[in-house]
């Protein structure tokens, strides 16, 4: 139960039953990180001391007959844009190293710790969450545990790879245009981007505030639900957090999803996918008996609008540093941010107006089913260090690497909840399918994901270490 394949709830069960101590579990996780992270480069900081102290407290609570929480002793890591008390919040940057250490944990980190999970470190990412590959110039690329020559995806690449590599059973990431779902798909794990406003972003370094979401990554549906249940709900410290009561998803996980109507998103969402990604989608659709195709109009334009909003909001947050120390940015991010700082306000406002129009069209389509399916990425993880090639997508020239978000970006644009599930044996490399829900209906997605997991259509085994 201290091995790499142990899931978070299984660990919590044996810790709570006092068959294994939280300290043993934590020490084993720290030893795994020491042994394997050199090859994967997931962690930018390992919090061994506080992790062992947290574990001791859990063991003491149990010995005293107190309940240490549903995730007691389960190790987790967080993308390094989350505040962790005592660590500088890097957000993938060199500039962040000069900032004072965070005074307190981000809300989501504090909530997971309050549920008994043990934070073991901070995870690599694209600088300021701007990217889909985690090829970070300052901290090096995170490597895909399924093929170390390939990217882990991004921007939560350290989170995806740490979970896929069996270093931790749980991680937190953030998703602005696909940054939880893309690494989840490339690394063959589950990733949840909740409804916009469902999980507090207080204490994270934001990227594009009108698009940013926080969510968990895990290798089992039940773990993903347990982590989500621990972190979801209102938070006065985040003005974007919705004032809605939490909807726990763990308790309804095993309810038959047979009554839910499932449809496949056609058009844009099928046009740009490779054959293997479409085959993975078909496998999930067949398992759920989803034969209907529905289409959302103007998806390409939605993507264009999301690009404008991301560029403008992202640059605005870093304008002071762009003025005084632009040379300290990751070069790829710096040039994008400098350009974003020059976008006319009229373009930004038009993009936000288009967003409201698009949201209304999406609402109409959402009436036609309860859960919608689409590929997560156009194909599997590309090689690390590939060329910065351009592709034309729906008439707009984009960087091939930005194209990795072609199916994720239009959905976060309107804040819908999405779980990316890894399709079992999809090919030589992992591939994900997005289960897309109506706003606030994460519980529907969990029921469907669980059914797929039980039927063996979805599986997230720990990646076997490459030779």
């Amino acid at each position, binding site marked *: 139960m201290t091995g790499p394949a142990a899931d978070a709830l299984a660990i919590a069960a044996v810790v709570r039953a006092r068959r294994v101590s939280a300290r043993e579990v934590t020490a084993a996780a720290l030893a795994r990180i020491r042994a394997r992270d050199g090859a994967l480069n997931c962690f930018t900081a390992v919090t061994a001391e506080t992790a062992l102290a947290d574990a001791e407290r859990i063991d003491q609570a149990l010995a005293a007959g107190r309940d240490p929480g549903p995730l007691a002793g389960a190790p987790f890591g967080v993308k390094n844009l989350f505040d962790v008390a005592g660590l500088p919040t890097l957000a993938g940057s060199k500039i962040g190293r000069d900032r004072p250490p965070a005074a307190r944990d981000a809300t989501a980190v504090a909530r997971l710790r309050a549920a008994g999970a043990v934070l073991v470190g901070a995870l690599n990412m694209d600088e300021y969450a701007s990217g889909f590959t985690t090829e970070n110039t300052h901290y090096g690329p995170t490597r895909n545990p399924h093929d170390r020559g390939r990217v882990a995806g991004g921007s939560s690449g350290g989170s995806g790879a740490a979970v896929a590599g069996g270093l931790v059973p749980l991680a937190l990431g953030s998703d602005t245009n696909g940054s939880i779902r893309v690494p989840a798909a490339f690394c063959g794990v589950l990733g949840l981007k909740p409804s*916009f406003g469902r999980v507090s972003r207080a204490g994270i370094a934001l990227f594009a505030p009108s698009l940013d979401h926080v969510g968990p990554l895990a290798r089992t549906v039940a773990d993903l639900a347990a982590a989500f249940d621990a972190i979801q709900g209102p938070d006065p410290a985040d003005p974007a957090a919705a004032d809605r009561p939490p909807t726990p998803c763990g308790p309804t996980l095993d309810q038959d999803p047979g009554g839910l109507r499932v449809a496949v998103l056609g058009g844009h969402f099928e046009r740009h996918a490779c054959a293997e990604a479409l085959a993975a989608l078909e496998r999930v659709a067949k398992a759920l008996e989803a034969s209907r195709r529905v289409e959302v109009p*103007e998806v390409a334009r939605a993507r264009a609008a999301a690009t404008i909003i991301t560029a403008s909001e992202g640059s605005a947050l870093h304008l002071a540093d762009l003025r005084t120390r632009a040379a300290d940015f990751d*070069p790829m991010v710096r040039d994008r941010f*400098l350009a974003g700082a020059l976008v006319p306000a009229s373009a930004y406002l*038009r993009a936000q107006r288009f967003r409201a129009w698009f949201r209304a069209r999406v609402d109409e389509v959402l009436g036609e089913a309860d859960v919608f399916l689409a590929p997560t990425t156009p194909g599997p993880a590309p090689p690390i260090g590939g060329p910065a090639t351009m592709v034309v997508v729906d008439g707009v*020239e984009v960087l091939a690497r930005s194209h990795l978000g072609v199916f994720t970006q239009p959905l976060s644009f*309107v804040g819908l909840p999405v779980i990316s599930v890894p399709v079992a044996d999809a090919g030589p490399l992992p591939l994900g399918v997005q289960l897309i829900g109506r706003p606030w209906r994460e519980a529907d997605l969990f029921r469907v994901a669980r059914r797929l997991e039980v039927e063996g259509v979805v599986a997230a085994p720990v990646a076997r270490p490459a030779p």
Partner: protein
Amino acid sequence: MSDTPDREALAAYVDQAAALQGLTLDPAWRPAVIAHLGRILGAAALVEQFPLPEEPAPPGPP
């Protein structure tokens, strides 16, 4: 902006707007910044070309 601006106009805009914003563009970065802005403005043109109904919609999250 009804269409993607031509290269020369774009480069001139980048130089002047960057200066007004207090941003210094290293000559080595300038071509990439111009290319990125060109792509963003291309995306803006695509959005602009779509006829939105006239009713005002507040900017902000969905």
